């Protein structure tokens, strides 16, 4: 198993600013993902964070709005750029290990409020 931590756990930001969320795993994971959970809603996959290359984005999400980095097998960041109140959500990262992709571990999430 893997333990995933996220920073910050919550933040309140002003419209038009950007926030970078960090995701740290206590062991190497092959795959890392970023999800968004809007208030009272389900989780929606934003992108797959690829180590050493550009992230793979799902339909409706673009790199300019949600730039993602993954410099190694234990760390990733998600930036929410030029924020608007519609970006108020919980952002979660997850990871899974090689050979066991069907077991995915989640971080505790970052609750973002945009005023």
């Amino acid at each position, binding site marked *: 198993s893997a333990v995933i931590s996220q920073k910050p756990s919550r933040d309140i930001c002003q419209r038009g600013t950007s926030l970078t969320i960090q995701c740290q795993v206590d062991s190497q994971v092959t*795959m890392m*993902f970023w*999800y968004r959970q809007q208030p009272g*809603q*389900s*989780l*929606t*996959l934003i992108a*797959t964070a690829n180590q050493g290359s550009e992230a793979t984005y799902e339909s409706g999400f673009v790199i300019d709005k949600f730039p993602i980095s993954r410099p190694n097998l234990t760390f990733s960041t998600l930036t929410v750029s030029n924020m608007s109140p519609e970006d108020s959500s*919980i952002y*979660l990262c*997850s990871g*899974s290990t090689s050979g066991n*992709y*069907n*077991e*995915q*571990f*989640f971080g*505790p*999430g970052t*609750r973002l409020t945009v005023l």
Partner: protein
Amino acid sequence: AQTVTQSQPEMSVQEAETVTLSCTYDTSESNYYLFWYKQPPSRQMILVIRQEAYKQQNATENRFSVNFQKAAKSFSLKISDSQLGDTAMYFCAFMKGGGTSYGKLTFGQGTILTVHP
């Protein structure tokens, strides 16, 4: 594309009783996995139970079991001897078994379960 549907926005149960949460899904894939995740107020997503589509036997984990009906594309979760700590949002999720989408989860809308003392 896959879709996952949970038709029960909210459920409640008395402590020690049994409750069943419903989930249906739509896919043209033959190789896939199904999951139930629990999200308590702490927001931490916790894997409750997992089912491989190629397995006919229903998965069980202590008080949690599933009724997997592959032909009907149904995947319900039964919680026996409900406990106060089971109070949470429960999500049904789908994952393809291979290809470029391997590892990506598609979630249902969630069911809020409240266990009453």
